[in-house]
């Protein structure tokens, strides 16, 4: 169902190959695809409309650069426009006089309590002294949940007995933080519907009573068209200073981020990327833009790889690749590295084009396949690993027996490895594609590279 915008535009533009300038009719065709792609990514209808208008204006009359196809041009413009609208990453504002009060608000199930714990952990790791305040008196056991998380993270949690008034808890909690030298107080509030007058009034009261430094709206990244309504209601009735998108670790396109950012005008501060308490990452507009467009998320992948790889072994590997002495032993250690990067499917999905190609061919890569390959390689002797040519049919039979697989599996692996070696020779021989480090890689130049 989800093709990337670039694939779609490519097919729209096949007839345009070699054309020097995009005329209005071409742009109209392209804009239909842009519109559709954004709607499928759950960007709100109205937001899509104004977005497409902007892109159209930017695109009309643009000269197609020699190195790019028209499709690449348009995707580049869309991508840039998305980044512009998503805005810059900003940090949590700190109050001039302590404590900094951060209040989390949002719909039920958006992930406020988990996010509160994640924020607390991040603050503590940054050398701050956070206090969590449990002001959700409605959901059964919400207080216990925050207490349990606080205990796990070694962050104190201020609570009051069942039946207490949330406004009082919040006020007392902040005072408690002040007297106990906590420089940050993180306030978890109950989930509420934006149309629930009484509940919205309650949270507005808390806000006006405490005057928090940050009031952050927690938004589920999987939210559909309605995201704008909830966000603008929260903004109007409570007033928010920032956004946290949660559950970004799924396969949602996350168009809601663009929608809420657009209607509220406040920055996205963090994204939640997992169930564990350390899975809170800073927000990078370029990555999310790529995701909304279905172009993969190379930068996150590179960053994770950088975090996991030590530089020395990376350099050694590079040398091996260049001198084409890459053998099965190296392959095995590569596999183990890849496994460290996260669930395989997620990792592969981040590689531009690959996720899409896999969907097209309905290739499913399972974690189990990797272990299988590992088992086969581990059943080889060191000599065989360095010298796969040695492996004749009797050795193949032995390896198959040893790894609990069939001779066909062993054959398949050896063939794939041979092909891989060949490919690597070509890549390293021809200068090849290099992954640049993280940072501000945007604009059209690298768009072309992204879309190869």
């Amino acid at each position: 169902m989800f093709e990337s915008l670039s694939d779609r535009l490519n097919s729209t533009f096949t007839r345009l190959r070699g054309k020097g300038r995009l005329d209005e009719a071409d742009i109209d065709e392209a804009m239909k695809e842009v519109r559709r792609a954004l709607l499928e990514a759950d960007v709100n209808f109205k937001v899509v409309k104004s977005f497409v208008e902007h892109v159209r204006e930017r695109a009309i009359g643009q000269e197609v650069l020699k190195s790019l196809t028209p499709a690449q041009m348009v995707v580049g413009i869309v991508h840039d426009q998305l980044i512009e609208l998503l805005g810059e990453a900003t940090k949590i504002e700190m109050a001039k006089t302590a404590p900094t009060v951060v209040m989390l608000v949002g719909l039920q199930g958006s992930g406020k309590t988990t996010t509160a714990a994640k924020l607390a952990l991040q603050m503590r790791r940054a050398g701050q002294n956070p206090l969590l305040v449990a002001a959700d008196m409605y959901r059964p056991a919400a207080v216990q949940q925050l207490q349990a998380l606080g205990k796990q993270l070694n962050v104190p949690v201020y609570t009051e007995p069942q039946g207490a008034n949330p406004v009082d808890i919040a006020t007392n909690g902040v005072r408690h933080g002040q007297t106990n030298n906590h420089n940050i107080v993180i306030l978890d509030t109950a989930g509420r519907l934006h149309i629930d007058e009484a509940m919205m009034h309650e949270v507005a009261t808390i806000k006006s009573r405490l005057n928090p430094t940050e009031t952050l709206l927690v938004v589920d990244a999987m939210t559909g068209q309605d995201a704008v309504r909830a966000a603008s209601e929260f903004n109007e009735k409570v007033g928010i200073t920032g956004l946290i998108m949660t559950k970004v670790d799924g396969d949602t396109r996350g168009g809601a981020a663009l929608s809420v950012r657009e209607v509220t005008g406040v920055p996205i501060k963090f994204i939640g990327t997992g169930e564990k308490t350390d899975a809170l990452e800073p927000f990078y507009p370029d990555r999310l833009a790529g995701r909304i467009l279905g172009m993969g998320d190379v930068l996150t992948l590179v960053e994770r790889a950088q975090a996991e790889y030590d530089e020395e072994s990376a350099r050694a590997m590079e040398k091996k690749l260049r001198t084409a002495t890459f053998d099965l032993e190296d392959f095995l250690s590569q596999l183990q590295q890849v496994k460290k990067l996260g669930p395989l499917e997620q990792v592969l999905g981040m590689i531009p084009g690959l996720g899409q190609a896999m969907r097209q061919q309905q290739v499913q890569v399972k974690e189990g396949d990797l272990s299988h390959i590992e088992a086969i390689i581990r059943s080889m002797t060191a000599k065989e690993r360095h010298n796969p040519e040695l492996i004749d049919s009797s050795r193949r039979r032995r390896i198959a027996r040893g790894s609990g697989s069939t001779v066909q599996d062993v054959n398949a692996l050896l063939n794939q490895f041979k092909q891989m070696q060949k490919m690597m020779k070509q890549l390293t021989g021809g200068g090849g594609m290099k992954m640049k480090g993280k940072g501000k890689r945007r604009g059209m130049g690298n768009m072309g590279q992204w879309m190869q």
Partner: protein
Amino acid sequence: MFNLFKRKEQPKTQEQIQEQEQKVEESLQRTKRSWFRQIASVFEVDEITEDIWEDLETLLIQADLGVETTVDVLDRLKKRVALDRLKKPSAVYEALQDELIWVLEHPEHATNPRSADGAGPISENGKEPHPYVLLVVGVNGVGKTTTIAKLARYYRDQGKSVVIGAGDTFRAAAIEQLVIWGERVGAPVIRHQIGGDPGAVVFDAVEAAINRDADILIIDTAGRLHTKTNLMEELRKIKRIISKQLPGAPHETLLVLDATTGQNGLQQAKAFTEVADVTSLAVAKLDGTAKGGVVFAIAREMGLPIRYVGTGEKITDLAEFDARQFVKALFS
């Protein structure tokens, strides 16, 4: 397929463009105020014009039906309008409702024949399974635990005995939450410690339900994103444990969807069906302004019937799904 999106043929004058922009602006304002007024205004005019199609498209997309389903529904509607020579917008409105109900009731590519003909207790030789085992699954934060509490209450009100299995051993205080609900509705909650093996809890829960001669066993599971292979495999295992212990169970695997979820809902339905053989859906949080339209895409592609809708925070806020009502709510 994209004919809906085509601009009108004649070139427009500046004035016409301005006028149209103003109209768009106005209609957006209307959307903000009230959906009802919007849909009413669509059908208020005397004759069917091109604008109607555009307005309807907007309406369906804003209800999260998704582009593909919207285009498909409107294509069929157009054919019907031509075939039946419908002239009045009000007739088109009726026809649209029929088409939408049709999508929910006659899934096109039903992949799950067991559930395609409507849900409900699957009785073998006319006998209700006993205990009737209901496994509840879904991504994080959709409202599984609350839905379970409501279901327990719903069955208790029918005079049935209910046992709940606290299979979410991951989220902090999930067990406590369920225990509180269990006390309120009068259903024992079979539980282990946090961090325990959900498979073991489920095993005990099935055993307890059998021993206590319960009518219904409802099993909670931890919320999991459908992209997490390991957690999804865990769910497969949970289901296997249930079937091993009680052949034929779970009799129903209910996927809870959040009404605010957009197109990702379809991904969720596919992934959960693959590992846990989902038989029906519950749509939670329909008391907000979200319409839960992604279920049309799910019904259309997968043939999963919707059984329950959650309509509020109170424990009694659960209703059996009614396609006609659901479709009507799209326009309210």
